[in-house]
């Protein structure tokens, strides 16, 4: 019997025929699954918890002159509640990569639900210094769970922490990313993969870069939506 990845307790499922075929392996126990709050009935574009159809952030991006021309639809799995914060803290700052695999089943279900075809994943990069510190790029590993082709085309130029800025500063563009030269992503459906969506500035900055490369459609996927 497997142990829950998040709390270390035994998962509470009984042995059945699924185990023989390796299907029913639950990675999370039911107690932890309840604590995670699923995204539903939010903003149509980004999933934010609002009563409006489109939230204020998305309206801002719609009117901002650099992002007017394209639209990004964001899919998130969970809201960023206290439990989510704890998980991300453990993944990113303690450096426990294995916890990402806890979301494997959720992501597989997500793909089945929306039936994505011919999509290329673009994980959000991290700066090399941060990579040395942490040991891995969490977005890349989230993307690996999809079983879809991954194009690691982006480079992070600037090593500033997004979370240390105020909202107004985040929403201005200041060239955090760059595209590696000599990559052809024309006429592809691209999905940007990241761990958390806060204001959408990362996603829209990358979206702008991809748009300039004449991408057919831009989607984005994040584990958490704050």
């Amino acid at each position, binding site marked *: 019997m497997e142990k829950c990845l998040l709390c270390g307790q035994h998962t509470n499922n009984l042995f059945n025929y699924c185990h023989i075929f390796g299907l029913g392996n639950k990675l999370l126990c039911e107690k932890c699954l309840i604590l995670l709050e699923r995204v539903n009935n939010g903003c149509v574009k980004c999933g934010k918890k609002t009563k409006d159809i489109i939230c204020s952030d998305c309206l801002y991006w719609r009117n901002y002159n650099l992002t007017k021309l394209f639209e990004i639809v964001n899919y998130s799995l969970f809201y960023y509640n206290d439990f989510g914060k704890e998980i991300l803290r453990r993944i990113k700052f*303690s*450096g*426990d*990569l*294995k916890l990402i695999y806890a979301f494997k089943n959720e992501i597989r279900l997500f793909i089945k639900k929306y039936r994505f075809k011919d999509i290329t994943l673009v994980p959000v990069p991290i700066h090399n*210094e941060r*990579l*040395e*510190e942490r*040991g*891995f*790029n969490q977005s*890349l*590993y989230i993307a690996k769970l999809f079983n879809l082709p991954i194009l690691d085309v982006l480079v992070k130029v600037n090593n500033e922490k997004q979370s240390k800025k105020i909202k107004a500063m985040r929403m201005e563009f200041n060239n955090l990313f760059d595209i590696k030269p000599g990559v052809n992503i024309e006429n592809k459906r691209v999905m940007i993969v990241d761990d958390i969506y806060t204001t959408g500035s990362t996603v829209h900055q990358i979206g702008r870069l991809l748009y300039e490369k004449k991408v057919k459609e831009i989607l984005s996927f994040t584990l958490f939506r704050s």
Partner: protein
Amino acid sequence: MIKLLIEYTKDVESKVISVDKKNNRYYCRRCGNHNQKSFFKDQLGTYCRNCLVFGKSSTYQKIWRKKISSEFIEEYCLKKVIFLSDIQKIASKRCVEAYKLSEDLLIYAVCGAGKTEIVYEVILKALNDNKVICFATPRKDVVLELTPRFKRDFYQVKIVSLYGDSPDKGKLGNLYISTTHQLINYYHYFDLIIIDEVDAFPYYNNKMLEGFVKKAKKDNAPVILLTATPTKKIKYLMSSGKLAYFIIPSRYHRYPIPLPTVKLTNNTLQKLNKNHCPRKIKRWLVLRKKNKKRVFIFVPSINCGKLLENILKKEFNCRFVYAQMKGRKKIVKLFRENKIQFIITTTVLERGVTVSNVDVCIIKCDDVIFDDRAIVQIVGRAGRDKYYPNSNVVLFSDYNTLAIKAAIKQIKRMNNIAKEKNLLR
């Protein structure tokens, strides 16, 4: 920049890779983990999940074994003479002997036998031999309680107290009072390790912490273990002759340990759920209230404690205390100062709390949490003061369990041994 993991040592200074491969199997130099399941591969290498709480240890990180050495003065002495009973004197002599021969020793002393005082002589002896000593315990509360006491008694010694967020981390000293978790930062450093409450959570059954102790001490440095309720494993080691031991069956004031009485109540949990206190329990509590005696009430779970607090609030001056509570220490302090008469608690206050003149009761003693060791520890809270050696201990239970029987048997046995050896008044 990769952060170096620092370990203090007395050996030659070196830098080693923290997770290494041997015979195609990974092992962690930091926590001694060999279990391949708890290693996980990431982008740059492999890391150990076992000791992740203490910082990431991986194939791309190095441990800096930093050499430090502490200073000593000519001669140490205690501030005041500590009076030991005869049996305590023998025990402390035995400890010194074990230290000289560098053997491991277990001291199996009854709750309230004065285990800490027994160790004083060895510590003094070792300090005068210019050795570095560690007094380790699994619980942070014990560290916090012991530090001022040791600072008072060993007034010339540089004492470092180590726990999760202590300000003393990385400081030099001669006597370290530490939680067992903090020993991770030491490698071949201590000449003598004394472990208090060996059987307590989380040290009990935790290979990682045992590994820390093994790593922190020098080779063939002695380890002295103190316990009141040995586990099965320790009992096996004792009986098979692998571990030398010494039993102290009586308390320092030479009164026997109070024997608990079992009182059977019906459907305790259901009654509590209906906001109703079982009659026997209430009658007993009312009697304590009349006599103005403080009472420890142990409950099996937080939920149960909250229910009971709600019921008793109106009539009794009571508070509920549990591990995750923030103002826990304050309430215990108020209880010590006699401002709260009844304290309801989960098993957090099972060890290391000394309050004079208290009565003790356990509610729903048939719960799985109360195994024989827990019951013996809880009974050990009673009658610790020499002026009030008699106190009333009651186990309210739905039925008699094996644990209750075993605990009573153990207490009786210790009392009998004490009687045979003429250690009782």
